[in-house]
């Protein structure tokens, strides 16, 4: 039996829909939401936090996983990234308060203080720019941090920009675009190759 890890939150509905449409597995949101682990049609599906999907796949507890590119970049590992599923499109951006004097990277101070739920991505992106940063790691409501003076800017994921606008923040730089990806454990792809590739083919056929 192969095990598929699905992320809670924004990607779940579309993941379930895509799995059903491509004939991999029919699973109701309530069913998986209540049980966290469901076995059906020769497939075991587990529901975990998005940031935990890479861990389940890397350690082989799950053979396959659906997860945003952002989580893959935040938690580097030796998994295979097989498919861009297309949905869940969003961007990792740097945003500042509307009233801030900051705009593009050239206007940032020598030491930029940023709040984020993605400290690793932030460090990598800022290193790429040659920007020194002080990273404050938060677990939620990151938008609040610059408004109360904790930091100069935030690094966060945004799809429509609505939350940012509601909190009077504006985007000054886009680090990368993200979408949902299908990933596989490196050993599973060898030991359960034909099973896995069958799932991949179905999901691809119902493609972007």
């Amino acid at each position, binding site marked *: 039996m192969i095990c598929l890890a699905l992320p809670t939150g924004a990607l779940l509905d579309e993941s379930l829909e895509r799995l059903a449409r491509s004939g991999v597995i029919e699973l109701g949101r309530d069913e998986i939401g209540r049980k966290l682990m469901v076995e059906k049609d020769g497939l075991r599906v587990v529901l975990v936090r998005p940031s935990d999907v890479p861990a389940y796949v890397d350690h*082989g507890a799950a053979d396959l996983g659906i997860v945003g590119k952002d989580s893959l970049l935040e*938690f*580097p590992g030796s998994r*295979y*990234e097989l498919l861009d599923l297309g949905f869940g499109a969003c961007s990792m951006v740097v945003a500042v308060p509307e009233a801030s004097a900051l705009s593009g990277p050239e206007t940032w101070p020598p030491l930029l203080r940023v709040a984020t739920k993605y400290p690793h991505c932030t460090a990598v992106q800022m290193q790429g720019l040659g920007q020194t940063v002080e990273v404050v790691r938060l677990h939620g409501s990151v938008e609040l941090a610059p408004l109360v003076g904790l930091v100069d800017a935030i690094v966060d994921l945004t799809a429509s920009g609505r939350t940012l606008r509601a909190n009077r923040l504006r985007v000054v730089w886009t680090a990368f675009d993200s979408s949902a990806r299908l990933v596989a454990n*490196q050993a599973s792809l060898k030991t359960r*190759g034909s099973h896995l*590739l069958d799932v991949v083919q179905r999901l691809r056929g119902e493609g972007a």
Partner: protein
Amino acid sequence: MRATQEALLSEMRSWGYRYVVTPTLESLDVLERGLGSAQRPRLFKLSDGDGSLLALVAERTVPVARLVAGKLRSAPLPLRLCYAGPVLVNQAGGFQRRRESHQLGAELVGAPGPVADAEVIALAMRCLDAAGLRSYQIDVGHAEFFAGLLEGLAVAPEVRLGIRQALAGRDLVALEGILDATPLSSAEHELLRRFPALRGGREILDAASKLVTNGRAARSLEELARVLDLLAAHGVGGTVQVDLGAIRDFDYYTGVIFEGYGPDLGHPLTQGGRYDHLLGRFGRPAPATGFVIHLDLVGEMLEGERGRQHLPALAAAVAWSESGLAPALRLGASLRLFGMRAVVDTQPRSLAAARRWAAGVGSRHLVLVESAERALWVPGGGRSRRLSPQQVVGRLAGGGG
């Protein structure tokens, strides 16, 4: 785990591989000369008294290569060497994986070509057998196949670099993006697109050799076919598969590569291959091939196959009271002479306390020595008897109880 390690090393020795000891602490320069500076973040580093940088070894092939090019410089090639020991890897970012693990490996230095390649693969498989593993699979590939495909692709150098990076990062989404953006379509193009799925039996080789036009890729397929023939002659052909899409460190490996997987492990059990450029970096150019076995993973798999192994039970727990210490020590020594595992208590105890103690240390027999003449023998689950210490030795050594 020690028993497993002993079984593996003894298999290696029986193939004529000599055990060598390499240091756990090496100069950072030495390790980087072997592995390249990309490996630097994976090393735990510390500084020496004179300010130079040292590092804990994250693998042991480079120290062995250095040994061959250094202390063993005048030893005639080919050399067959094996090693075992801890390695320490600083996992950059990501999860708190175990940092210290145990590796065992063998290196065949100075022998080129498929005959040597097949020897180390067969040895790796015999080692897994010797460890007691029942179900594993070996995938054999070739580093030159990928290099050849890339060479055969008529694209700009930066596109080639992009393909390399995407595959090294196992990012097939990025790979597809790059290939879609190149207008050319060729057999190499198509093979790269299907790259990670190029696995199977021997038929994969035939199918691929009909498609490739690049000389390097074609030669790698011929070599693989020869290795498969030789593995069959070694008597280990059955569990071997061909994996042309193996993704490994493309800069390090130069020829036939292989990996071994267990059924429920998320990581390979064993990895190896040909690395003909490494010895040259230490001043003694020579072809070489070898492999490493991850001992912790083998242990995990054995546990899964036959359950957790308990320590062998103690044969006797020797307690004492009053003036029984000296005779108790003599009794312990006599039991050990007969090859039994015996523990002598460190403090006097009453019978009730001695029973609890014996149960706690997990012993089959309890002997409570009261004096040179008097002892109480309590066989596991049996009726207790009053005997002299000499009689107890006679009973236990004679298989009594």
